[in-house]
């Protein structure tokens, strides 16, 4: 059986990141766009942990912890914004949000 190398993790991570980009650009539901951002963050996390494992350097895992912090902050603020927007516009469809157009 072939062993799992760093390349496998990089390929998996890039596929996850690409799926996140597809979801981010092509969906109109703001909630799904948020979840796509989470997916991209997770792809980066996987890459960091894989590099940390194959370089035998523990700093990558510490970086992942900071990414968790940023993700939690982003989700809290983003969902609060979404609730506030929903209260004004009665929808979460991103194409309907044109109030910043001026």
């Amino acid at each position, binding site marked *: 059986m072939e062993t799992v190398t760093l390349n496998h*993790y990089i390929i998996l991570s890039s596929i996850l990141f690409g799926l996140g980009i597809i979801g981010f650009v*092509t969906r109109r539901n703001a909630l799904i766009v948020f979840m796509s951002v989470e997916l991209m963050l997770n792809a980066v996390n996987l890459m960091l942990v894989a590099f940390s494992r194959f370089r035998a350097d523990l700093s990558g895992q510490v970086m992942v912890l900071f990414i*968790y912090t940023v993700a939690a*902050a982003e989700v809290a603020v983003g969902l609060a914004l979404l609730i506030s927007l929903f209260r004004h516009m009665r929808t979460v469809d991103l194409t309907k949000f044109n109030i910043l157009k001026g």
Partner: protein
Amino acid sequence: MITSRDPLPSALGLLTVFIALASLYLHLNAPLVAIFQVTIYAGAILVLVVFVIMLLMTPGERFGERQHNVSYRILGAILSFCTMILIGLGLKGIYDLVGEQTLPEGFGNPGQFGYLFFNNFLLHFEVASVLLLVALIGAIYIAKKKL
């Protein structure tokens, strides 16, 4: 996860991805990160997302309509394809650069992790705590009834 029309099945698909990633972290000698993945992502963040989905789901509204603008869809496909190709091109060079080091004794156990965390990354830790506090206050302020 990105193909389902409703946000709720999409969230459950995301949960599956998170759990699978946690098992991959276990395989990568990162047990602490796996635990954090399950507790923070699958536990806290996803519950928050599902809660908001339940809060905003109004009956009768067509959720999960796709982007009508075709150029956006093509743009998404091209962007993700280019990213994958770009990362794929660098694979060989990265492997030559990094290679595979043999792991030292006890790599990734929580004690070593905590030692590194509170020695080399103490300032980052403090900044992250301030960031969390600011995000908390900001979220409460934004989600208030009257802005």
